[in-house]
């Protein structure tokens, strides 16, 4: 009888101990996830370090990544994806999720380099520079923080209000917009506020869902009321405003002394970056949620009726149009002569940047809402089935 009891206990132990260990591991793992890189992160010119690839959000990068592409790896993400893309620094891909995580993957292999929960939700793509990661936060007490990748510690954080856009990095500062309509410039070093722009009633305060772009000494952003505003990058003074007929949700692009922006009024605008005057406008027939890309005399925009439209940057003339099967929310990313863009139809398209012709496409399992990040390591795409997929030029071309 006693033996029987011990046998039963032994059986119980044999079954329960591993479960307990597993539970402890899960609890421990859930409570102390880490993003601590053991290798230095040295950003280079071929990296896609922030939303839009550069401070002007041009979406153009001078690397060669020609299609056809092969799917090299894919990995699960801890949460959904906001409007901004993955970013690359050195050989590491960083992804911010709507669950408030930053996840890092080795670009070549897809092996996870670490993850860290930093807040409630992160909408905009982070910026990686000088071994630090800067990210904005939503639904959280803090607005922005600086995370040191080598030590895995938060260097500084600052609370200025909720933000759902990506920050833009300048030489010594980080600039970001808040949902309440303010713009802050903080020191990269310690998060101190360098200047802030809080619009009074005369400056049409409204929520901001448009990530700011930087260039030509200005910061440009759109707001939910359709105002495109340019601030002096050094002091935060207002330089000019331009009014569209409906909200500007996508990030503007600053390229070649011009600011390009699409509006929910279904029109695409080109503005003189120096004074805010309208250079040209082009009705595109459906609201524009996507951020554009611009380079080589062209500007490309995605529309909510599923088109990708190439325009002349000089005149706004429609050069080409390509139709996908669902709204296009993602910003285009142009690598040399190839334009990569994802659609809510789950497909990543590669188009000729000059002709708009379809060169290659690949259907994923989830909708693509954010721009592809392009680098010498390949093309990295986030989809709303909570996956990151890495594509590399095919070896069987």
């Amino acid at each position, binding site marked *: 009888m006693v033996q029987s009891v011990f046998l039963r206990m032994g059986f119980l132990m044999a079954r329960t101990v591993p479960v307990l260990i597993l539970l402890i591991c899960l609890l421990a793992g859930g409570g102390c996830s880490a993003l601590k890189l053991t290798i230095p992160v040295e950003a280079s010119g071929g990296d896609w370090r922030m939303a839009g690839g550069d401070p002007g959000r041009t979406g153009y990068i001078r690397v060669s990544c020609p299609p056809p592409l092969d799917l090299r790896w894919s990995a699960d993400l801890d*949460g*959904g994806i906001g409007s901004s893309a993955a970013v690359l620094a050195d050989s590491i891909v960083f992804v911010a999720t709507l669950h408030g995580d930053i996840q890092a993957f080795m670009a070549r292999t897809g092996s996870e380099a670490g993850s860290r929960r930093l807040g409630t939700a992160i909408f905009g793509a982070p910026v990686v520079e000088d071994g630090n990661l800067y990210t904005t936060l939503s639904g959280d007490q803090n607005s922005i923080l600086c995370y040191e990748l080598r030590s895995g510690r938060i260097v500084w954080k600052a609370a200025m209000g909720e933000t759902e856009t990506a920050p833009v990095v300048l030489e010594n500062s980080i600039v970001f917009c808040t949902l309440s309509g303010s713009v802050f410039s903080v020191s990269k070093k310690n998060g101190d506020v360098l200047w802030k722009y809080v619009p009074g009633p005369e400056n049409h305060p409204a929520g901001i869902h448009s990530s700011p772009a930087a260039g030509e000494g200005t910061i440009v952003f759109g707001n939910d009321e359709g105002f495109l505003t340019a601030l002096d990058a050094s002091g935060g003074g207002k330089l000019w405003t331009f009014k569209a007929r409906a909200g500007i949700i996508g990030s503007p692009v600053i390229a070649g002394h011009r600011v390009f922006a699409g509006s929910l009024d279904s029109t695409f605008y080109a503005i003189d970056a120096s004074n805010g005057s309208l250079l040209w406008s082009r009705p595109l027939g459906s*609201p524009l949620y996507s951020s554009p890309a611009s380079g080589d005399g062209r500007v490309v925009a995605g529309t909510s009726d599923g088109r990708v439209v190439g325009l002349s940057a000089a005149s706004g003339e429609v050069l080409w149009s390509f139709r996908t099967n669902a*709204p296009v929310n993602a910003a285009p990313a142009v690598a040399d002569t190839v334009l990569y863009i994802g659609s809510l139809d789950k497909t990543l398209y590669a188009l000729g940047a000059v002709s708009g012709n379809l060169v290659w496409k690949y259907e994923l399992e989830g909708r693509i809402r954010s721009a592809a990040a392009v680098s010498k390591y390949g093309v990295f795409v986030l989809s709303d089935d909570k996956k990151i997929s890495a594509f590399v030029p095919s070896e069987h071309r």
Partner: protein
Amino acid sequence: MRIRLLQSVFVLLFFLPSSPVHAQFFTFGRNKVQYTDFNWHVLKTDHFDIYYYPEMEDLARRGAFIAEESYRALEQKYNHCILNRIPLIFYSSHLHFEQTNTTPGFIPEGVGGFFEFFKGRVVIPYDGSMFDFRHVIRHELVHVFMYSKIGRVLYDHRMLQDHLPPLWFTEGLAEYWSETWDQQAEMVMRDAVVSGYFVPLSSMDEIAGTYLMYKEGQNLLRFIGQRYGDEKILLLMENFWKSGTFEDVFRMTIGESYREFDREWSYALKKQYYPLLAGADQPAAVTVPLVTEGFNSKPVYERTATDTTIYFIGNHSGYTSIYRIPCGRSGAKPKVVVEGEKTDEFEAFHPFQSKMSISPGGVLAFVTKSGENDALHLYDTRAGKELRTIHFNDLVVLGSPSWSRDGTSIVISAVDKSGNSDLYIWDVRTELLTRITNDIYDDKDPVWSPDGRTIVFSSDRTSFGDSGAYNLFVWDTTTKTVRYLTWGPETYSSPDFSPDGKTLAFTCNTGGARNIWIMSVDSLLNPGPMKQLTHFTTAAFDPVWADSGIVFVSFENFSFQIRSVPDARARYDTSVVSRQGNSVVTGPPWSPGKLAGSTEISALKYTGDYSLDVAQSQISTDPVFGTAGGAFLSLSDLLGNEEYDFLLYNTAQSSDELLSSFNLAISRVSLQRRTNFAYGVYRFSGRRYDLTDPDEFFFERSFGGYITLSYPLSKFRRISILTSVTNSEKDATDNSLNGSPLANFDPSRRALFLSNSVSFTHDNSLWGPSGPLDGTRFNITLAYTSDVKYSNADYYSVIFDYRQYFRLADRSAWAVRLWLFYNDGKEARRFFMGGNWDLRGYDRWSIRGTKLWLISNEFRFPFLDQLSFRFPFGGVTFVGLRGALFFDAGNAWDTDYPGTLGSIGGGVRLNLFGAIVLRDDFGKRIEDNFTRFQQGWFNQFFFGWDF
């Protein structure tokens, strides 16, 4: 029907092994009759699987076009796309739609379609109007997109997809993004603001689910859209993850609390609508009331040598019926002429769609749903009896019959199986039915001209039909051609000729409100000017000439009343011309789009596409029965016609019992045809506690099978039969050996039961918050059960259950119930009663016997309409508390009648959210064979609906 049959099956599964006939568990309820044998096909488009039957293929292709067009529009509105194919189930008429098995409940006439998000199905009937069809398709697709969008937002943030925005938002948006601001929306909002019953956003819960909520929600979101842009509405959905309460989400997104927003919204509405009173009136201020209580519609006027009478469709008691009142006597109490919704013949009226007509000889023509299709009824108002009921085989829905002045023919609008709404003339003498229009346009409200040479009707065959406008048209009996009588982007409807045939009254919504207009029609080829008779802030419907006056239905204070303008003719003669006649102006009718046969489309015959309805596994522990674990799976096809249920569980208490303690049941339930059936096999094993023998536990192993059929004779009556075979091995357990109920098995009975039963059920009851208030419920069941192998059991059963409800006032009734249950034979089962559900004052199920009788009398009345508690942290409100006074008598026995038991007392019932009724009864038992009252009082609290 589906619920009832499923309930029967599960009752059988659990009670068959021990008691093959337990008819006292049979439930009442009306029948969802599958009159029509649909031959389903599937049309595949880019984003939809469209289910249709061949008779309506053309309509299905038009619906497919609308669906794809709507999808593209909503894709942009939502900035979102749907990843899966959307099942879209079309019916060509509302009567066909009412037969759907995609939802188990009954579908009221007012339901234009629904989105069922469990399987993602959209189910929509066609009502003859392509504009309405487009509206409903888009309305339901707004729901599909919203459900997907909200689900995506919550999924992105790793939150449970277990809640949606409040109903005012979901339905308000579905209206806002599916149609333009139409006359009905305008009518309701004008009335709400001017009459002062407008409900602000902060109190919107009070009108949840009502039509007013739909329209206020639509107006509110329109206000937000105009003020901030539609992207703000989208942002409300994108921000849905930020808080568990939508009010917080609203405040974060709009920047105002509900109360702050209310100030601006209500001010804007007042500013918009109050100025209307400068040029228009509310109907009650300027017209004569005839019927102001209840819901009223479709009046007709009759003059005899001695009387003038108005007949109308009304709902004053819960049942929609035809009433009459003497004309000109304000405040006269309406009398029921034809009582509806209680019998097979007058199953349902169409109070919003179908007018009535009375012949010079006093024969009232009206339509009701009667069985599979609508029927035309001819009722002699002078003799007070129905003359004829006419069914037209190929016509599903009928509407607005109109007598010719000579009484020889009736023109009527009708929807055939293809969904087309056209006009027909029925010759009363020859019974020949002639179709006079045949196209996709919605032709309705036909009326004979007094000279019998033309028919005037309302139709969307106008150039403005695309925007939902209807013009008046003339059909010429000689040339058999149709031409315009009115022309414009408004809606003209309900024409009615004056007795002299020189003027035509109708309604027109020029200026936003539907008012009564009169046109001179000395010559229909060259009609005279139109003059606006009424200038109401809200609306007028169904004008009919009553000699020189006009009787009509007014909408005001959210009620439909019958009113009159006694001097209409005189007003017409003296008023100024509002608009010249339009007969010379014509234009081509609009042309609704149709998805052509492209390579993207394929039409296939439907084969059952099964998916999971319920999957549940559970482990439970009971102090008596120990631990049991199991799983239940239920699969059904997309149309809900066929269902398979699987039940598997194990009650083993030790490893050696494992194999012998498996319980398994597999059932198939078929609801596709009129005769519903279910069959299955089962194997049960385990300890049981017999409710009828409270001192007996036993262990039983049984296996067998059953088949049951249910044939609905009508919505109110059905016949059900059941046959089962069960092999049972029952071991009594001696419970005196406490602690080891398994220790003393005494194999006491083996049996092979063959059980047959047949039952008849009738139910036309009308329910209030706690139970029925009107109508009759009746069930009689005969059953015979025998042990065909061992002769251990052999008994028969008779169940008689009759319940009658006598309405005393709108919300009070006297209810009577009579039970006579009789089981007799070897091992006959005992019945049981006692407690709140039957014989009150006695312990629950404490009175047992193979014979049972019970009579209950109960006076049901409203007790408290609202009970609110306000705490510092919030409040809670209970509505619909009902009271009861009761008197019960009865008893149960085996051999010798022990004397009569009874009770008398009162009680309170509280309906919680429509799902459950809590009931508390108190009173005195009548004991000792009805000779004395108990000392003190009893009090019993339980749950359950009134009998």
